[in-house]
């Protein structure tokens, strides 16, 4: 009984969905690369967004196993790229912040490849689905779209919030700086004018 149970469990075991989403920090003058081993004729989707740092832009390029460039964009804030592989091998996705001298960036990356694995291995049989099952599949697909949309809004919100916090910081520093500047200039001007008239009383009177 236990043997049967365990062997059933083994049969039903399935890998997790093939896709990775990551946010990572890209320091200034740095390049970060991610690699993926893919089979032939596999469709992969790449989404990236810059969430924080400087002008919120980054260079990105994708190469295939033979080092042909599939995608190469400079200073992009966000983009989406899809490709069906023509050969098996290691595909490389690189992000470069080499044009920036002192701002480090935070980049969000979503790399999806292949088709979604079925929940259970037994679900791959090609008999027709019942109405209930096809409704479940439809709802599942729609919920995935909802989750993706939420991710999109979460990233845009993080981006806007970073900008707003940056603005607050800059306003604070500028206010303090300008107060100091005003006092220094106000008093400085008066001091300078006084110094012009200090010991030249004789020459001014002589001129008039």
């Amino acid at each position, binding site marked *: 009984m236990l043997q049967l*149970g365990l062997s059933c*469990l083994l049969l039903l075991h399935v890998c997790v969905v093939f896709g*990775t989403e*990551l946010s990572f920090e890209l320091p200034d003058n740095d390049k970060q690369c991610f*690699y993926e081993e893919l089979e032939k004729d596999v469709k992969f989707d790449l989404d990236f967004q810059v969430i924080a740092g400087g002008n919120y832009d980054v260079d990105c390029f994708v190469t295939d196993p033979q080092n042909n460039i599939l995608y190469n964009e400079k200073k992009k804030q966000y983009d989406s790229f899809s490709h069906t592989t023509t050969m098996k091998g290691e595909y490389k996705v690189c992000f470069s912040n080499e044009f920036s001298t002192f701002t480090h960036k935070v980049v969000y990356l979503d790399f999806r490849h292949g088709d979604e694995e079925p929940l*259970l291995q037994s679900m791959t049989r090609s008999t027709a689905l019942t109405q209930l099952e096809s409704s479940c*599949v439809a709802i599942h697909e729609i919920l995935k779209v909802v*989750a993706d949309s939420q991710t999109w809004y979460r990233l845009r919100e993080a981006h806007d919030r970073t900008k707003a916090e940056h603005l607050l910081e800059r306003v604070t520093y500028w206010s303090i700086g300008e107060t100091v500047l005003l006092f220094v200039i106000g008093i400085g001007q008066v001091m300078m004018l006084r110094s012009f*008239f200090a010991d030249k009383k004789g020459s*001014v009177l002589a001129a008039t």
Partner: protein
Amino acid sequence: MMLSVPAAGVLLLLAWIHPGDGLYFHIGETEKKCFIEEIPDETMVIGKYRTQLWDKQTSSFLPSTPGLGMHVEIKDPDTKIILSRQYGSDGRFTFTSHTPGEHQICLHSNSTKMALFAGGKLRVHLDIQVGEHTNNYPEIAAKDKLTELQLRVRQLLDQVEQIQKEQNYQRYREERFRMTSESTNQRVLWWSIAQTLILIVTGIWQMKHLKSFFEAKKLV
């Protein structure tokens, strides 16, 4: 299928731990790579990694290297460390968030043997799953004895629960954003009023002071 119980157990364990080749990247010896996951609270995150060391002799990456470990450090949004552990060359770490926000997952190699890193490259396969993607549905089906349809519905329920958590988190984020914006608005307003007052006061003081100075010098 006739399998001995221990063999089946081992196979299942291996299949469970093996990450199933995800994205990989290269890491240097003392380099620390950090990843940020912005997640709502009470969300489970499972991370699996697999390391491969570059072998100069065969000019390829070895399948696995015993003795090589990775140190995993996870910080919560308040920069408090919630997990700081050493794992072997293949590892799996889990944590559940208790506060919503940006969690930081940092990995660095703990190798003290300089010889191992002579080639200089370590390949790390990483797979991070968040929320309902962490659920192992075949296991749930077996444990609760669910039919296929019940399992599908369970998956839908998990998805909806995760969406709901994300929406609560969005409400919390919007509040923070609103507070920052209102703070900026107030500071700009007070600063404008203060600046006008300072300018007027400085102007009046300058004129008064200079007038009295020139009168004293008998130039006016």
